[in-house]
């Protein structure tokens, strides 16, 4: 029951911060990876190439769904911004349910840009049922479909190294983020810019997704501080023999 209360309080805090009208825009710390992403978006639209956005193979009915949903939020805004490009973005997934949501999200992005007639359902693809099968299916997309930037945001495993390697062979920049530690280490070594940890969940706020995303960052910061204080106090109390 305690967990439910905590979740309820977090939800209320999120709602309040979402509805709170800030006088000045919230300032975020600079994340070079997201800056490169914004630049890559513009370059892809200018030179008529496309973006490859992969939301991983995290199933929605598993704890891996959080990174998948964050990846879908990023996909929504990327689709809106790049819908006018000569080559529309392609979204690849390794989970069937996630592929359906990716198609829906792409369509929402096109609708927001007023170019719903340009939406092609096959731009949201299921490339494989297993992680390595998904990677094997995504590599041809990077190699053959004139991709200018790789955006890997979701749940990935060691197979992300194959994607980064394929991108490097095609001189395509890769911006990756995952909640899997293995993938984070691989993306750190293999990609140009990597998002570590919870930066995956902040990427949509950096792209101006809305007040809810911005409020989520604030809630995360508040909770993080609470956790840090609790850990420190607990460690001190344990050290002093109080607990």
């Amino acid at each position, binding site marked *: 029951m305690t967990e439910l209360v905590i979740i309820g309080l977090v939800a209320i805090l999120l709602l309040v911060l979402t509805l709170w009208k800030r006088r000045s825009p919230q300032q975020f710390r600079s994340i*070079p990876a997201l*800056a490169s992403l914004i630049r890559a978006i513009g370059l892809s639209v200018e030179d008529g190439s496309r973006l490859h956005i992969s939301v991983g193979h995290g199933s929605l009915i*598993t704890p891996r769904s959080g990174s998948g949903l964050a990846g879908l939020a990023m996909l929504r805004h990327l689709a809106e911004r790049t819908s006018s490009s000569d080559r529309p973005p392609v979204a690849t997934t390794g989970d069937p349910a996630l592929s359906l949501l990716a198609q829906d999200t792409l369509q929402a992005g096109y609708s927001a840009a007023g170019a719903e007639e340009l939406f092609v359902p096959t731009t949201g693809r299921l490339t494989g049922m*297993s992680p*390595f099968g998904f990677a094997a299916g995504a590599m041809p997309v990077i190699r053959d479909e004139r991709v200018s930037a790789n955006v890997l945001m979701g749940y990935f495993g060691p197979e992300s190294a194959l994607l980064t390697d394929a991108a490097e062979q095609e001189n395509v920049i890769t911006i990756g983020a995952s909640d899997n*530690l293995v993938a984070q280490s691989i993306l750190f070594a293999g990609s140009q810019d990597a998002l570590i940890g919870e930066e995956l969940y902040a990427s949509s706020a950096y792209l101006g997704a809305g007040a809810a995303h911005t409020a989520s960052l604030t809630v995360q910061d508040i909770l993080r501080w609470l956790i840090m204080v609790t850990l420190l106090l607990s460690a001190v109390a344990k050290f002093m023999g109080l607990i």
Partner: protein
Amino acid sequence: MADITCPVCGEINSADQEFCQYCQSRLQPLTGPLKGADAPITPGQFPTKKVTADLEPILPQWLRDARDKARKNAEEQAEQESKPEPETGASAPDLLAGLQSQKAEDEEETPDWLANITGSKSKSKKTETGSTEVHWVELGKPNEFMQEGEEPSISATQEPTESAGEESLPPWLAGTEPAEGGADELTAWLREAESPRAEPPAQEPSPRTESDSGSSDAFPRSSEELPDWLKNLQEEKPVSSEVPQMESPLPEEKSDSDWLKEIQNQQAESGLESAEKEEPFSTELPAWLKDQAAPSDSSLGGVPDWLQAPSSPAFISEEPEQKAEQENIPDWLKAAAPESSVFSEEPAAPIPSETPDWLASLQKDAEAQAFEPEKPEEGEPPPAFVEDALSDLNAEALFTEMPDWLSNAGTAEPPSTPSGVPSSPPAPSSEALTPGELPSWVQAMRPIETSQAEAPLSTSGDQTLETRGPLAGLQGVLPAIPGIGPSSKPKAYSIKLQATEEQQAHSALLEQVLAAETAPEPITSFSPLATQRGLRWLLAFLLLVIVSGVLFLRTHVFSLPVGETDEIRNARLITENIPQNTPVLVVVDYEPALTGEMEAIAAPLLDHLIILRHPVLVFISTSPTGGLLAERLLSGPLQDRGYQRGTQYLNLGFLPGGLTGVRSFAQDPVAAAPLNIDRAPAWIGTPLESLTSFSQFSAMIMITDNAESARTWIEQTNSSRGAMPVLVASSAQAAPMIEPYYNSGQVSGVVSGLYGGAIFEQNNSGRPGFARTYWDTFSLGMILAIVLIIAG
């Protein structure tokens, strides 16, 4: 009562207030809404014609007074007028008409000097009753200002100049106005001076009116106040000299010389009374006038040529029939008969020479004195005009353009004997001038060379000597800016911004700040490294050759790791203490890609368990390929144990639903997984037919390659597991994430990576041996990687 908000300061005032009590601005409008007769004129609409007589009440007081006087003067003039005066015929605008408009006013203010000349009484100064508004000089004829069809209903329009300038006539001219209004008298006689007349301009004695008194303010009433040059002229003027009053602007039908005639009439009326008075003009000519009057080639004996009577008939000749009249006219005024007017564009009609008496007197005096260029006396202003500076030609030009009263003022001879005056035809007004040259008459006016050298600067009062320009040498010239003196070149102000160093520094700082705002931030772009396919091939070749060669050779060069860790020891102990022939749940959640590593880790553990405890293994997986991998495990590394499906193990296959499926299985295993991998009832007819809850399993062994799967099974079965021990055989990549669960006691033992498998295998008597097989390859590959990383 509703309050009024001030439109200026915004404060609230009561409605009855006319002015704001805070800022004193008007609250109540002066005028009401424009409607009816006050409605504004729309475009295209002709203004409504007004009867000007109806506008009399709204006229200013001074205008009304002027109009009244004009009416009176008109009536008087009509009575006195005997001769139809020729029309001036001047179509040119009479620029001095306004001056005559002040006649009515100034008639009452006759200056004393003028009164003495004319012999009329000087009237007391009439108090001004009108407003002090500026009297505009009206140009043109009255009927020019009337609209079509409109009759001059206002008498003032007939004599606009008279009524308008009634109170604002310059003092010097106020006393010389004729009694009656009329056309521009000044320009008239100036115009007369232009035309080649044989006779002096006719002079009509104008009745002196009370306007003389007004002009007396500007003119000294006594001789002491008069300028010297005027005094000198006055002294030599005979008693009979009469100062004619300048006529007020006469109507068109009057001639320009009517004012002179009027003056003569006044003189006749006043008699000799004025003659007894001192002449306002001094008979002694001023020095500048004396110098001018000294002609080099003039018979006037020193009278400046410009002052000498021109040889034109207008100046010199007199009609015989007018001689009698001229004798009564002061000499100085006789000489003032304009030969030509500077304002007229056409040569005016010959005007009978009517030299004003005052001017004639000046001429006589000039003759008597035999002007010679002499140094002016001390205290006297230097003559403005020097005869030597004039040439014959210039003198002639001067006489053609100069007013008569100025040109004949210095002549000693009467206009009738202008022997010394160079007879030169009046220069046409349209005399062509060479570019860059001053007109002759202007040059003649400039006594620069002589007057400035001979005459010291005037020290009388505040009169300064003009030193440059066409009026050089004249005294008492009004400066361009009163009180300041001659104008000078305006000071040049630099348009460069005058800012202090501190201000400049601040502005530079502000510019930097603004530039930084608009300056684009450089984006650190990555430098794309060229892909090195050769290095890839080399690495691949090395790894393939070395690893496969060692694997093929089955070398045992590298020793196995020693030292059993706590996690591995606990795992071993738990497997040794599980009850025999009890169901043990084995979760197979790894990908086919990691089969080699996972089989090398899981095989020694399961082999150890099977050998010692003969459990009934129940395989299940949340991965679609988990069931097949379980079968591969039993038919591969554990083949020697001969476990049979259905009796010694169950393969439940794929458990759908992920986390939810695990939770379901933990709550009710039979219901969550009723079928086995062969799609046959899994629990019926098996040794586990009596199993009804998850807690009946004696242990749970998770074989997984990722921490999420292990966490899922650990967390979701926590409530149903009870005291069931949990063992984890994980890949090396998931070991750090599972370590906390071991530390917290949720996991009893962990065997991770090939390292753990090799250690456990050593404790299992080296069975099955996969770890030993792979260890040399594994070590050699690791060393190769270290070397390549360091070398690269």
